[in-house]
């Protein structure tokens, strides 16, 4: 499969958009007309062509622009990529996983040739052709985790498993929904989820942790998470909140369809073979409301979900200021008709 990569930005003039094909393959996260937390984990297995599950590590039309945006974030703030000293082996595990998945899924764009420990990696969209020794960090321009995650869409957290818990001891985080890797680095599973309302009391994190501790190698799992973002900004970090916070006041009835984006995270979980760590890719997909409403089922359902969202979740997700405007906008696309089960367009 050959992808045509869009030239677009996720900052300043914000000229990001989805093609018609991109809209159809968007991972709409709601399988019913209302939303509440659930562990909602399922096996991460390949799905139909034309969906984001065509390949287990998805590359789409935004790949090159997202990697350029990541490089800009890292140039301003190198602490977005960190790896505690005991995590280097897990970094090599991740490098292998991503190179194998990218080369297998997109042979027109990526190529991996191995001769013992001497590997050659070709990334055509980014113009990279490097030869290195697997396991020898000095033969790469960055540590193994940073090297490969500068070439893969989505954030990546690497979780060390010890003492019956998971510890966020490494990561590359530049497309986050308002959380800081630098602050959360070294925390355990319960600690880094501490600010999330409701879910602790519901036992969601106890169940999720237990599940993840037993994750098997070669059996990746996945779930969705979501929020909404004003402007197609990938880097909504606590660090840069003063830059993007004022945007939340910029939404009007005239611009809401273009300004407000549904932000969906495809989270997957993979056991790594050498380190026994877990890598947790958090892949962010953005869609403008005016793009989303071109799929009638999604328009109806998005309206109902957003209208009926509990107030504490509205606040936690940062939707408070402009939600009424977005609900009004979506209401015009909701005729009250029943929606079909599942996430896919009719």
């Amino acid at each position, binding site marked *: 499969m050959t992808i045509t990569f869009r030239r677009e930005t996720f900052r300043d003039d914000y000229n990001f958009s989805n093609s018609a094909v991109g809209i159809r393959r968007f991972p709409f996260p709601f399988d019913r007309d209302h939303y509440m937390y659930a562990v909602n984990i399922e096996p991460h297995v390949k799905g139909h062509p034309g969906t984001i599950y065509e390949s287990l590590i998805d590359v789409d039309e935004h790949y090159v622009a997202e990697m350029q945006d990541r490089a800009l974030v890292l140039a301003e703030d190198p602490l977005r990529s960190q790896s505690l000293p005991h995590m280097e082996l897990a970094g090599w595990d991740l490098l292998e996983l991503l190179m194998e998945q990218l080369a297998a899924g997109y042979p027109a764009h990526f190529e991996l040739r191995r001769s013992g420990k001497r590997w050659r990696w070709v990334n055509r969209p980014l113009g990279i052709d490097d030869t290195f020794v697997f396991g020898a960090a000095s033969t790469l321009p960055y540590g193994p985790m940073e090297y490969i995650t500068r070439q893969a869409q989505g954030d990546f957290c690497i979780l060390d498993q010890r003492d019956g818990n998971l510890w966020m001891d490494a990561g590359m985080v530049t497309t986050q929904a308002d959380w800081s890797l630098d*602050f959360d680095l070294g*925390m355990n599973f*319960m600690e880094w989820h*501490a*600010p999330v309302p409701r879910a602790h009391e519901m036992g969601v994190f106890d169940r999720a942790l237990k599940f993840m501790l037993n994750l098997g190698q070669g059996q990746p799992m996945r779930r969705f998470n979501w929020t909404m973002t004003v402007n197609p900004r990938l880097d909504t970090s606590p660090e*840069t*909140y003063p830059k993007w*916070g*004022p945007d939340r006041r910029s939404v009007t009835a005239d611009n809401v369809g273009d300004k407000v984006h549904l932000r969906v995270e495809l989270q997957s979980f993979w056991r790594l073979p050498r380190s026994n760590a877990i890598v947790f890719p958090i892949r962010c997909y953005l869609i403008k409301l005016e793009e989303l409403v071109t799929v009638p089922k999604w328009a109806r359902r998005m309206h109902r979900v957003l209208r009926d969202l509990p107030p504490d979740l509205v606040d936690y997700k940062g939707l408070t200021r402009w939600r009424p405007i977005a609900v009004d906008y979506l209401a015009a696309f909701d005729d009250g008709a029943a929606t079909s089960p599942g996430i896919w367009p009719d």
Partner: protein
Amino acid sequence: MPETSIKSRPVYGTLAPQPGTRHILLADGDGAAAIVDLARAAPPEFFERAHIITAPAAGAMAVRAPLRALAPAVLDETDRLAAALSRLAEVLAGAGMGTRLYVAGTEGTIGQAMQVALDAGVELGAIATEHRGSRARRVQCAHCKTFIDEVTTQPVACSGCGLMLFVRDHYSRRLAAFQGVCVDAEEPGSAPTPEEVFT
């Protein structure tokens, strides 16, 4: 106004003698009384294996005299937390198996002593803590990463970048700090007047 307590918020206990071959105790001026209280329950040989490091305000004899009376094997008296922490790092570097660490004082003292101990490879479970004194917090600005000591107000002005920060309950042991996030980012200039809440 503060967030209700969350799972990254540290929880402190009460110092009590633990079985161990060596006991390292660190206290600031507020925490010294917790060591004195611990002594009441300690077996006679406890302080023969004890190394006390103190960081009270300079010249605070009222704090020092009761600790001297415990006759620990070693008593390191400093008058600054930074000095006490570097002494702690040295002592931990030479500490063997069976060493127990006890820390008492303000949240800032406990957090920074734990940071030193964890960096030295001490297991979390081998550190006992007791909060004494003010509830002043050590805060890291999420934006310019400056650490602000002895924060008593909500919100607080960052001493690095000047932004008004909401002090969250979200806490990092690695950084020994609570997270401070700009309180009026969405509407600059709308920050509420700081109130004394961490006292």
